[in-house]
């Protein structure tokens, strides 16, 4: 008789795997990708392809030649990092900058910490922030939607958040608002902004898919969005001339992309539900503080990175509720 396999229990395992989860997230990004291609045309296609291919290639090269291990570049995580990086760049960014961003995202953001599962900060955001600091002009020239065949030659403009920030120096919210896209356009994504962050509705569809497939839980996205809504709502009620309404804040900038995709990155977010809620509320508060009182028009990226840094601390001190109270023995 052939020899029997002996191993400890359990002898059954889930059908989920790292690739199935990663590709699940990638699938959920497709509606947003479609909408972005619709608005930004060829530019979106170029930066997405360049970003994904460079992330996969850098992951392969580093694993093979630097770490000298078995490359896992096709497990979906590098593709996902590439997509998310592209999503938070302007669609007219020169491709060499995209390649640099990908190198920093994968090389510095992920591999220096030991690869998948070990990084403290979200790799795509590390790449984005590096580019933001290195190429501040290119990173803040946003193509006007609808120029299908234009890439780096596209006409550019400012984001609604940028216009709001600038405008508030001289004017009231009521005077600025007519110059901005309507809420419907904001919802549909017809505005200047990072390539993948514009279409709130498509990102929300992605979130519903992720929740339905149980790839993520509601705790992080809902606590971030809820906090931003409540915090900006309080400010708006206190002084509607100085502070934009909560809906405006919900639909602009990288909030949806950040709350649904960046902050929910498994590796860099907390391990317990309670921890996730604290993390989400923290990200929401810091986002609003930067947007409303800080120097930058948008603060989601920094808020997430800051709370990525708090994640180990949250994991250490926030414990799940254990089953059964302690009893004293004898």
């Amino acid at each position: 008789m052939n020899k029997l396999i002996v191993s400890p229990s359990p002898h059954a395992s889930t059908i989920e795997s790292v690739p199935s989860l990663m590709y699940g997230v990638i699938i959920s990004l497709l509606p947003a990708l479609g909408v972005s291609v619709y608005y930004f045309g060829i530019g979106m296609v170029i930066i997405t392809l360049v970003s994904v291919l460079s992330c996969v290639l850098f992951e392969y090269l580093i694993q093979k030649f630097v770490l000298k291990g078995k490359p896992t570049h096709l497990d979906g995580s590098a593709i996902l990092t590439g997509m998310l990086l592209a999503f938070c760049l302007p669609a007219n960014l020169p491709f060499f900058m995209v390649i640099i961003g990908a190198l920093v995202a994968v090389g510095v953001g992920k591999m220096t910490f030991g690869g998948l599962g070990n990084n403290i900060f979200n790799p795509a955001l590390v790449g984005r922030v590096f580019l933001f600091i290195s190429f501040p002009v290119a990173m803040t020239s946003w193509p006007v939607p609808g120029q299908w065949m234009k890439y780096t030659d596209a006409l550019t403009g400012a984001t609604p958040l940028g216009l709001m920030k600038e405008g508030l120096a001289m004017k009231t919210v009521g005077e600025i608002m007519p110059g901005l896209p309507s809420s419907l356009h904001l919802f549909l994504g017809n505005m200047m902004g990072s390539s993948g962050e514009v279409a709130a509705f498509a990102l929300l569809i992605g979130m519903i898919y992720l929740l339905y497939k149980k790839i993520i839980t509601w705790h992080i996205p809902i606590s971030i969005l809820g906090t931003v809504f409540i915090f900006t709502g309080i400010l708006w009620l206190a002084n509607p001339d100085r502070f934009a309404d909560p809906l405006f804040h919900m639909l602009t900038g990288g909030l949806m992309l950040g709350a649904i995709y960046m902050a929910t990155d498994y590796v860099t977010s907390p391990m317990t539900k309670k921890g996730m809620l604290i993390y989400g509320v923290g990200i929401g508060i810091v986002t609003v503080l930067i947007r409303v009182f800080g120097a930058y028009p948008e603060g989601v990226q920094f808020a997430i990175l800051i709370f990525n840094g708090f994640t180990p601390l949250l994991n250490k001190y926030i414990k799940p509720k254990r089953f059964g109270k302690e009893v004293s023995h004898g």
Partner: protein
Amino acid sequence: MRLKTFSRGGVHPPENKLSAGMAIRELPPPELVIIPVSQHLGSPAKVLVERGDEVIVGQLIAESTGFISTNIHASVSGKVLKVDRFPDSTGYRNMAVQIQVEGDRWSEDIDRSDDVVPNTVLGQEDIRKKILEAGVVGLGGATFPSHVKLMVPKGKTAEYLLINGVECEPYLTADHMLMMERSEEIVAGIKLLMRGLGVEKAILGIENNKPDAIGKMKKLTDGTPIRVQGLKVKYPQGGEKQLVHALLKREVPSGGLPIDVGVVVFNVGTANAVYEAVMKSRPLIDRVVTVTGKSLEKPSNFQVRIGTPVSYLIEKAGGLPGDTAKVINGGPMMGKALSDLDVPVVKGSSGIVVIRDEEASRKEVKPCIRCTRCVGVCPMGLEPYLLMTLSEKKLFERMETEKVMDCMECGSCSFTCPSARPLLDYIRLGKAEVGKIMRSRKAV
């Protein structure tokens, strides 16, 4: 009917109840049986027979040796070939009595009729005594001597008797079929246990994937103090603490027992064995075992004598399929993989699951991506990913403060890990080390 369940953690492994609906078939005794003297939790029984002795079915061959221990009986008639150490399902060699089967002669004391005797005048003491005499242990798998559970410690009171008809392990159907075919015996057994414990209320919990059993038991218990409660299908609902929580919303304390919240839990199979022991004077000499597997020709529920080799059961279920790579004693979530198919069926054997090649090997271990699934599914509210890391780094004292000893090894964490990390392996290792530390502290 409103279904209940426990609230923290849990998983939904594929049920694969292939042998559901297969009537229990009584197998004739094999040629040789090996009856270990330690089939229960607690101290091993002391052997009373020698090589060459003639024994009959139901004869005491090893007696209880302490407070937590119980009796062992001959399950067949014949001649004792050897009293020696034999390999058993643990993989180790342990003391056992090997009997060459000759005929099928039964002890006169055993009532072998099929008549169900529903009532008795026996008191608490007598019931406990009969259970000990018959060597009844928990048949759900933990094999804790049943008479001990009926002795409520001083200062504690039993309010509820809970009967576990959950059978949450995938594949297994022994309890299901037992509830279908021995329902009256089980009800009588539950009444005996209630009397033995001195409680007025009993609840029988059955998962909703056995609607026929729920219906049947409901009908039979109508008008009795026994309540039948349907439960949502979720593993590990058959875990004692989970069942208590599902049925009564009471949390058994960490390091405590159900009696700390006024509850005692028995399995349906145990209720049946208690009935047989008390009303029929029939010791625990056989049990129902599910023999199943996707490639097996005839997945079955067999009533087999204790000590029967596992290989004999597989033979009767159509023989070992060619693509077999693993054979599990018990269910796939908590059962033990066997290295030798000649090991005997013991009191705690609820099933033999034959696993095919493609499902037998573990998947490649990937890095932890901190997806939080293991934390989410842990029914005890532990953090398996953390416990594994601590165990790898040999930080055992820290594991103790992280409550590793609460782990009941249900395997939900390892099951659910998308990176196929051996979480439970490392947690077990840690538990063993923490156990040593705790014992050495006690010794000082």
